[in-house]
């Protein structure tokens, strides 16, 4: 018992798990460049965490006299594997969207449309391009209009 070693793999696994979690949450909250890389970086770090946990668990079960952490190893391996599966699903689900190949492209005409504003009044793209929007609705014609199609608030 006196010569027991620290089961470093379990600690390293925990470190990578935290990193994966933080980076996986960043795309939602942070205005940082390179955000395209974060979803798969999250997967990579998660996989590394699972690998370390498995290694730590193997050390603890094969050399229990030398390495502690059998219970922790099992718990962390199972939990991190489940988290990793969830990340895989989230990765798949957030990329499983229809392509936009048929959408208007740069240089093409933006089709006119009529939608409703928040008070239920109809408003068309032609109107939005012709007059300023907002309280008072005065001022010069806008140079351009930015259309942001979003998934809705739910």
């Amino acid at each position, binding site marked *: 018992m006196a010569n027991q070693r620290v089961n470093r793999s379990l600690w390293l696994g925990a470190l990578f798990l935290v990193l994966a979690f933080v980076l996986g949450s960043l795309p939602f909250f942070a205005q940082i460049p390179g955000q395209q890389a974060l979803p798969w970086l999250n997967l990579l770090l998660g996989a590394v965490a699972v690998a370390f946990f498995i290694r730590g668990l193997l050390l603890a079960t094969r050399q229990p006299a030398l390495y502690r952490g059998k219970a922790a190893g099992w718990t962390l391996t199972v939990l991190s594997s489940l988290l990793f599966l969830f990340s895989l699903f989230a990765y798949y689900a957030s990329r499983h*969207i*229809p392509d936009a190949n*048929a959408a208007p492209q740069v240089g*093409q005409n933006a089709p006119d449309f009529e939608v409703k*504003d*928040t008070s*239920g009044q109809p408003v068309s793209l032609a109107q939005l391009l012709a007059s300023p929007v907002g309280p008072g609705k005065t001022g010069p014609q806008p*140079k351009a209009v930015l259309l*942001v*199609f979003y998934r809705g608030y739910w």
Partner: protein
Amino acid sequence: MAISVDEPGVSRDLARKAGYTFTLLSDPDATAIHRYHLLHARGGPEGSDISRPAEFLVDRTGTVRWTNFTEDIRVRARAAEMLAAAQAIN
């Protein structure tokens, strides 16, 4: 302008709660979303049809000058990108 299938009341509450000052527009029947070929069929809650994320900058002649179509719903156009695209228009 931000467009979704949300009803006007839902957008009004969202704008009030989040303090948004840009215009929120409602397309509950997804007619504009269809016209722009952005429909994500059964992509919403309880299998409802929604829009896939997409951004367009349209100049005063009605011509598309800049677009952004993400491949991952977690990765969206940043305000700085959109501002730069808008500033490039005279």
